[in-house]
């Protein structure tokens, strides 16, 4: 059931600006299949949007020119995937919102990315470790989504999966080389792992929406991805001579819109132009 779309305000700042898109919560009714699918899609698209944004923050500042190029590549892939996931989310919502509207005109509480991807970049080691821990989940997630009962989801997953297969290969390789590099690189990678570890559990904790999406064969149950992740991460960390932290705690809330303080600052810069000049075409 689709609730009526909130009234659209008209831009007042400029006669050449178009109508301003609503920025509130989705008008879809919680508990409906459309709302579930919309939520599942924004979870995917918000992860790639926020992580892509974080990675792009390195532009021109990475340790070596080749890494500037590699990070730009990864950010480009993630932003491209965002356009697909959020584009489909907007279509499923049926309220006229585009991928850009969803990216630039929602506030933090309507973002549903996991907390891991909004963690600040830290040093280059923390950025790489965050990438690996995410990629090790992202790739099997996409693999599972390729078999989705929703053909649109399967199609996006197939395309994104090819890119992400390369991401995980690269990030795992770098974690191994830096973990087993110098004493300093080892220390930094271990510190990064320790700092991020409690943000990994959220990837595998499902809620009622996840359960219904899994029952409908649209998306895998988050819990089902845990064994594969544990195996890959265990293997890579062992080769990297890094020790998985013992703390089993998992910070959660991102998927339900309860974020860390960091997200608001990220959105502040990311959304600034769209917010400051509503309705302008760029």
């Amino acid at each position: 059931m689709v609730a009526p779309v909130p009234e659209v305000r008209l831009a007042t700042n400029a006669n050449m600006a178009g109508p301003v898109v609503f920025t509130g919560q989705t008008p879809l009714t919680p508990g409906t299949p459309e709302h579930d699918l919309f939520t599942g899609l924004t979870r995917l698209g918000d992860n790639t949007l926020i992580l892509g944004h974080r990675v792009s923050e390195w532009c021109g500042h990475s340790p070596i020119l080749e890494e500037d190029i590699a990070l730009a590549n990864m950010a480009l892939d993630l932003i491209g995937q965002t356009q697909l996931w959020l584009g489909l989310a907007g279509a499923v919502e049926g309220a006229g919102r585009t991928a850009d509207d969803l990216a630039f005109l929602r506030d933090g509480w309507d973002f549903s990315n996991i907390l891991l991807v909004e963690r600040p970049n830290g040093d280059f080691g923390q950025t790489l470790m965050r990438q690996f821990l995410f990629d090790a989940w992202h790739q099997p997630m996409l693999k599972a989504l390729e078999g989705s009962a929703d053909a649109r989801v399967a199609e996006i997953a197939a395309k994104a999966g090819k890119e992400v297969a390369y991401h995980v290969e690269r990030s795992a390789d770098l974690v191994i080389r830096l973990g087993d590099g110098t004493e300093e690189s080892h220390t930094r990678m271990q510190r990064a792992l320790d700092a991020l570890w409690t943000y990994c559990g959220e990837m595998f904790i499902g809620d009622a929406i996840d359960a219904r999406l899994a029952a409908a064969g649209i998306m895998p149950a988050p819990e089902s991805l845990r064994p594969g992740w544990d195996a890959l991460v265990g293997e890579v960390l062992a080769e990297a001579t890094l020790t998985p932290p013992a703390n089993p705690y998992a910070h959660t809330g991102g998927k339900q819109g309860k974020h860390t303080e960091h997200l608001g600052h990220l959105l502040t810069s990311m959304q600034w132009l769209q917010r400051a000049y509503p309705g302008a075409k760029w």
Partner: protein
Amino acid sequence: MYAQMIKTAHSGVHKREDMTEQERAFQDRIDAGEKIEPRDWMPDDYRATLIRQIGQHAHSEVVGQLPEGNWITRAPTLERKAILLAKVQDEAGHGLYLYSAAETLGESRDELVRLLHEGRMKYSSIFNYPTLNWADIGAVGWLVDGAAIVNQVALQRTSYGPYSRAMVRICKEESFHARQGYSAFMAMALGTPEQKRMAQDALNRMWFPCLMMFGPSDKDSVHSEQSMAWKIKVATNDELRQKYVDQTIPQIEYLGLDLPEAGIVWNEARGHYDFDMPDWSEFFNVLKGNGPCNSDRMADRVNAWEDGAWFRDGLMAHARKARARKMAAE
């Protein structure tokens, strides 16, 4: 340009009668339009001048990531963000090709980077100006890459083979950047009144710094003659600047913006636009380190390099360990 005020080892041109036989043969090859390749004999000054020029060009590509990177996190749409990221990535790639071209002359990338960080090598003055509003990003692609193209198209004919070939490859991408920049700028110039104001502001601020990219007037450019004789440089600063102005003014008019300065007038007799020169004292101040962004740009690059030392060392150490393990297993 991306390489400005490149000093040859001494001023004035070698006279033919003062040349050794080897130098004469070298000059004859250049005059005949042959390309000089890495293994060929070349005068020390030719090599040194090229290293400085290619190195400065490479540094410009790398430092040039920063003013554009300044807007990546604030790009207003996903598509604009992707286009900008891809462009900045291309610039980093240009830096790589050019460092490789310099390596064919026996100068390592690490050494060139060290000289840059010690302030003993420069990058183009243009990157010491800030990007202050979103229209600047379109303007950089259109006006800055546009200026680079004018110079680099000419440099495709340069005498040193690897440099010439790098220019051919780079020019294709730069032309694409300039077209994308113009279209991003057009969206601003034809947009809301605020967007149009941003566009005009970007154009006005960037105009003279773009003209400076070509370097001072030929009559004041003491090092050009030998570089021209060696075809390290293939057109004069003033020729290139005129070409740039002539191609750019109609593009500004098409957008319906005001011209950036009052001295721009079509001169029917010359068949070119007249225009005012930039304030060269500002240019020399920027070269001395007093531009609006010099210290920020250098701090960014030096910090990135120093903060990344552990990463580079870590990878090297791993490679050594892996080699040792492989040898032990054999």
